[in-house]
């Protein structure tokens, strides 16, 4: 299973990737939406974990661009904000939102649920 972590908080996703690796999950990191699109062009990921608020391409916009390229890719949104205004950001009700700080075991459970690997 391959995971793409996208967040401009570099230390956060680098550490998260290390912790996922210790649990046997291969996670690649991208610090911008542009970098994520490039990586997704070279590699097929099962799940993308996207920060909603990023400089440049937002997480919601990134999903819109990644979905047609990889119809089977699953998405999890991560936010540092308290609330999400779904109607404004254009994301669907089915999207999964996790709030920072993350509980890694819950994140893995969510990934397993999405990929039916649990």
């Amino acid at each position, binding site marked *: 299973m391959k995971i793409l972590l996208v967040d401009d908080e570099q230390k956060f996703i680098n*550490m998260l990737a290390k912790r996922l690796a210790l649990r046997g999950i291969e996670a690649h990191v991208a610090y911008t939406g542009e970098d994520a699109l490039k990586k997704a062009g070279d590699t097929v990921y099962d799940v993308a974990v996207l920060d909603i608020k990023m400089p440049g391409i937002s997480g919601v916009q990134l999903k819109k661009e990644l979905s047609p390229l990889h119809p089977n890719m699953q998405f999890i949104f991560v936010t540092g*904000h308290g609330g999400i205004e779904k109607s404004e950001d254009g994301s669907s009700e089915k999207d999964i939102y996790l709030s920072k700080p993350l509980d890694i075991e819950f994140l893995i459970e969510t990934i397993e649920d999405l990929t039916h690997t649990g």
Partner: protein
Amino acid sequence: MNDALNYVNTEGLKFFGKVNASISHELKNILAIISETAGFLNDLTELAKQGKELKLSLLENCSTSIVEEIQRGFTTIKQMNRFSHSVDVPVTDIDLVETLDLMAGLSGFLSSAANVSIENKCTESKTIRTCPFLLQNFIYQILCFVYESTGPTGEIRIHLLEEKEKGVLLTLFSSAQMSVEKFPDEKMKKTAGILGIEFKTNHSFYEINLLIPYAVETITQLDPNG
């Protein structure tokens, strides 16, 4: 007078909420890094218990990261504290450079924020008698307007130059072309009107010029103590 006061109150609440939301976002990011780093240290501890070799460099990196994030948190809380105290008095003497520095820091939490640098060319420190909270609101509006053009990779340079008897001339240089046809909008005009700030007509696609007066009647009227 009442109109000005109502405006300060209603727009002020929106501004206060927006800034506080961005501060909480920043603090959550800091806590998220500390949380992941602490979690990683726990992971390493568990591995060490199982007999795996523990690399000291990993521990050093973790402790350095935690210290850096705590420092980032202290800086954020200090900014939050300065911002919160700006509503203590309706009108007071302020240091313009300090206010610009605070607004550059607080607006820097926005995902669209560019890099902001401030260059003070005034010969001596000049205080401005103003409504500190409303001036912060105005500077934040202006910075957000410029960020729309620069994006997060752009740069804004702010110059301060003394204009004798009148006030301080503030010039914002943008690294990207701005939509000057949208500038200033109605909200900026209204805020500037209360603060007595003059939009100089020589603004261009890359430059905004503002004259901040040392004091104006409209502002001193906001002070119930005269």
